[in-house]
């Protein structure tokens, strides 16, 4: 039984090295289908190199909000939006999950950002901002920031398109743009890396329980600490992406309509209006005029 102990101690650095390699680079190249069958793409599954090193661990549940997030309307100028119908990607995802439920299916994680530029009368700007906020609150959203001539709101991504339409209905929109940032790949990579790191942490904890020497325990604990930090970082990033995808940001900037400058009109004073003349009993006054003057025939 002495042999196993010495072999165990000798094997710790080797195992740690392998774990380090796995957690450091194995995640980015995606795990084996067994790790996260519901959330991996076909590409990730085909290139999975770490099947043995990553035991099965359930991935986080797919996010509902991003999967339901509508695409911007067809008229939007989104640089990254699909040219197909607004809801096409979401429907495609749903159809795929229904028909091809399997290891290649995963939900799209898209962060929507809308920007609107509106013009309003200077006096009406505060009221217009209030209306934008009302739209957000009516859809379950909230104000994210407000300045004198701009406002930023957050609305559930499922209501993003409706919110844009309602804000445009307020009137005065002169420019609109929608950005749809697809973070699906990053999100699912992080999910896989998180699963791997959790597995690593479990194995390290097992090693820690079997370690006998102080040196071995310190070595394993340092590694555990590093893995825990990495897990925290990835969980934070995932939470950030999840929140951003669940609530879309719409920024509305308002500009006061330029006041129409009064045209410079040179007013020539018109001759005074006809005055009501008195009716003098003097006949010749009524006879003065051009007609009798120019009538030369007697």
């Amino acid at each position: 039984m002495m042999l196993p102990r010495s072999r165990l101690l000798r094997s710790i650095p080797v195992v740690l090295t392998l774990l380090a390699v796995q957690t450091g680079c194995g995640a980015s190249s995606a795990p084996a289908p067994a790790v996260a069958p519901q959330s991996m793409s076909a590409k990730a599954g085909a290139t999975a190199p770490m099947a043995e090193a990553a035991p099965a661990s359930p991935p986080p549940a797919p996010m509902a909000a991003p999967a339901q997030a509508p695409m911007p309307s067809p008229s939007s100028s989104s640089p990254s939006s699909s040219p197909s119908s607004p809801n096409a990607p979401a429907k495609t995802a749903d159809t795929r999950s229904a028909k091809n439920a399997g290891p290649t299916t995963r939900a799209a994680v898209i962060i929507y950002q809308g920007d609107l530029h509106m013009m309003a009368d200077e006096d009406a700007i505060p009221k217009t901002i209030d209306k934008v906020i009302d739209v957000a609150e009516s859809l379950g959203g909230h104000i994210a920031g407000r300045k004198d001539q701009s406002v930023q709101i957050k609305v559930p991504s499922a209501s993003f398109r409706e919110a844009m339409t309602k804000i445009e209905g307020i009137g005065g929109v002169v420019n609109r743009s929608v950005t749809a940032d697809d973070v699906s790949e990053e999100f699912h990579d992080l999910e896989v890396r998180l699963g791997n790191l959790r597995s690593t942490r479990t194995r390290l904890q097992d090693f820690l329980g079997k370690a006998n020497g102080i040196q071995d325990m310190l070595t394993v604990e340092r590694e555990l600490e590093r893995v825990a930090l990495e897990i925290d970082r990835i969980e934070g990033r995932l939470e950030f992406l999840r929140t951003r995808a669940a609530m879309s940001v719409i920024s509305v900037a308002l500009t006061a309509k330029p006041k129409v400058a009064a045209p410079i009109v040179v007013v020539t004073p018109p001759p005074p209006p006809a005055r009501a003349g008195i009716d003098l009993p003097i006949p010749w006054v009524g006879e003065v005029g051009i007609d009798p003057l120019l009538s030369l025939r007697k």
Partner: protein
Amino acid sequence: MYTARICAQLAVALTLVLGTAACHGARLETPNGFATLDEDGAYSYRATSAKGVVLATRTEKNDVKANTDFWAETLDAKLRDRGYVAEGTRTVKTGKGLTGTQLRYTTTKNGREHRYWVTVFATTKKVFVVEAAGDKEPFDKAVASVDRAIASLDASD
């Protein structure tokens, strides 16, 4: 006896001549290019150019003892009521020191724009009205002659 009769006849003749002259009314110096017309109607003097620029004077009693401003305003009101378009007012002075008010108008006659100037002078007993009118184009060419004619008004109470 004979001499006395001659003197009496001369006195009567002189009175008649002076009376006739006084009743003749205000007159103008007829400008070059104008012809003087015999008048026995409303005008005491009238002259016309070949192109229809007409000058005329009226001599009326100032029964209401009004000054020049009164008559100018009265005539202005009447003329505006009849559609004359006022272009301005100016003060004129004759060569004999009589000061009057000139009212300038435009009006349309037979589809053409005409100018019509009325200059009124009032004394304690008489009102002298000098009228000038004509088609705009020939009138504008004759403005200097018209102005000189008005300034030559010969009028007395």
